[in-house]
């Protein structure tokens, strides 16, 4: 069974076709990636999958259920969680609190629980605290738990965003250009983190610009160009595909690995 099915997804903005009948499946196992040159329609595709943008045509099927046009918070509650191209942290919260917000859909304490603090809510909060600290340590931000999120350098903000998304225990994690703005070492570390996430049973689908990260990390790649899918396959297959080489490099050389 597939985690995610994208069926003939189309999005038009006025006369512009940002996504033209894109179809592919994301299997439960492993890491999938969507690549393509700037303006290929990758972010539009992600926005439609995660419910932030209504498709003009086509369907999104998550875990065998049609989630086309479902509100983002409901899609998240079903276990599909995304990150953003420009890290969108909660600036007025600490690093730890940011990750705790990630536990939102896995917890249920409301206003009354906040005021009365019954035993179950205290247990829930303790569990939230424990999980959040685990995840912060997992992405290597353990010693910065109580810093304000806005005070982190950019590379660490990206890692924090991933920790926050993982706190929701997603079945499918969508990462929108997670390596954007990271240096070489940070990208290496990110690649390792993504592989460990996938190894723990979370399906990962990422959009990426950084070819090195994709080729080293992804098991399957979908290539977009001008809003259309032009290739799909393993990293090796995609690298050898003449259309991909053409799209990426104007046919001059093969993609660097």
């Amino acid at each position: 069974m597939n985690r995610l099915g994208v069926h003939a997804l189309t999005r038009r903005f006025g006369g512009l076709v940002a996504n033209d009948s894109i179809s592919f499946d994301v299997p439960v196992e492993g890491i999938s990636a969507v690549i393509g040159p700037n303006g290929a329609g990758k972010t539009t595709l992600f926005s439609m999958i995660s419910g932030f943008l209504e498709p003009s045509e086509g369907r999104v099927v998550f875990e065998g259920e049609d989630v086309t046009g479902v509100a983002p918070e409901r899609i998240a509650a079903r276990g599909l969680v995304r990150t953003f191209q420009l890290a969108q942290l909660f600036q007025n919260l600490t690093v730890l609190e940011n990750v705790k917000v990630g536990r939102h859909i896995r917890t249920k304490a409301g206003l009354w629980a906040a005021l009365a603090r019954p035993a179950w809510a205290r247990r829930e909060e303790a569990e939230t605290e424990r999980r959040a600290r685990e995840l912060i340590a997992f992405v290597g931000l353990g010693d910065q738990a109580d810093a304000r999120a806005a005070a982190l350098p950019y590379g660490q903000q990206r890692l924090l965003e991933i920790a926050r998304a993982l706190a929701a225990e997603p079945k499918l994690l969508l990462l929108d250009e997670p390596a954007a703005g990271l240096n070489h070492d940070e990208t290496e570390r990110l690649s390792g983190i993504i592989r460990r996430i996938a190894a723990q049973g979370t399906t990962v689908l990422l959009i990426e610009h950084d070819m090195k990260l994709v080729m080293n990390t992804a098991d399957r790649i979908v290539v977009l160009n001008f809003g259309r899918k032009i290739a799909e396959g393993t990293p090796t297959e995609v690298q050898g595909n003449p259309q991909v080489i053409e799209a990426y490099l104007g046919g001059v050389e093969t993609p660097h690995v």
Partner: protein
Amino acid sequence: MPTLPTTISTNAGLLLRYLPAVLAVGLIAYAIVAGGHFVTLAGFALIYAVFVTGLNIFMGYAGQASFGQNAFAAIGGYASAVLTATYGWPPIPALIVGAAGAALCAVVIGYPTLRLRGHYLAMATLAIGLIVYEVTVQWQSVTQGYMGISGIPPLGIGSWEVTSDRAQLIMLSIVVTLCMASAWLIRNSRFGRAIVALSGSEDAARALGVDVARYKLAAFVVSAVYASLAGSLFVHIVGFVSPEVFGMHMVILGFTMLYVGGIGTITGPLVGAIVINLLPETFRGLKDYQDLVYGAALILLLIYAPGGLASLGNALKRRPSTPIPATAPKGARP
């Protein structure tokens, strides 16, 4: 406290941070001991602290704008006044009815507008402030119009009433402590984190499953209940209510207090309320100039000290390289 900025590490910094709160408590304690005119002023400051604490939950935490908090105070105040003075109810049930009315009104206003961009709610709340004022003037059979309602009994349970100035001040101190404690409990909970989160990025909050519209509405209702409570306290302490009590000046005063004390902090509302009520007693004499001065002060604070007076102290100590933490996230402007 989890909202501690990382830039403060020294004991001196901590001292400076808590100094306003310590002074605030000291002033109230002095008022209880000293008595007299000072007690009345301290009492108003504490009532405003309740009002501004509610405002802070909606504006400081959830990052939304409401200009109609005076309407909720009026609903609470008039419910208490009419039910106790005219119908002879005990104060506590009257107060609860007022709070329920304010909450209901907040739902009616907030549900359609909070799904949309901020200025819709801002304008709708500005309108409800004017409308409630008009209703209190026009609905003479109940509110007695401009004449107002007098003879409102002091707060109390059964035959036990809080009558002396000092006893009232002690009672208000307890109420304010409870209000601040509940604000702290709200802030440091799943609910509180969700509303602070959505003020940072609505998209990111939704992507994590936070029902943004619902949480904004809940924060709005909570702030309305605080305002209603402040309105009820006011009429019981003063014993009189008229439409002018809950005019637009209440909103501007509330905002000024919030910005003076520090928006988005637990103690900010109390500090702001005390500073604005106790220190510029000279301004209070010149009633016509009061709103003018507060309006101008608010503009200056917004431009030059967006984090409140407390943040001015921080700005002096901060290393030049560290960016000034925004009281609310940047880029939220449409």
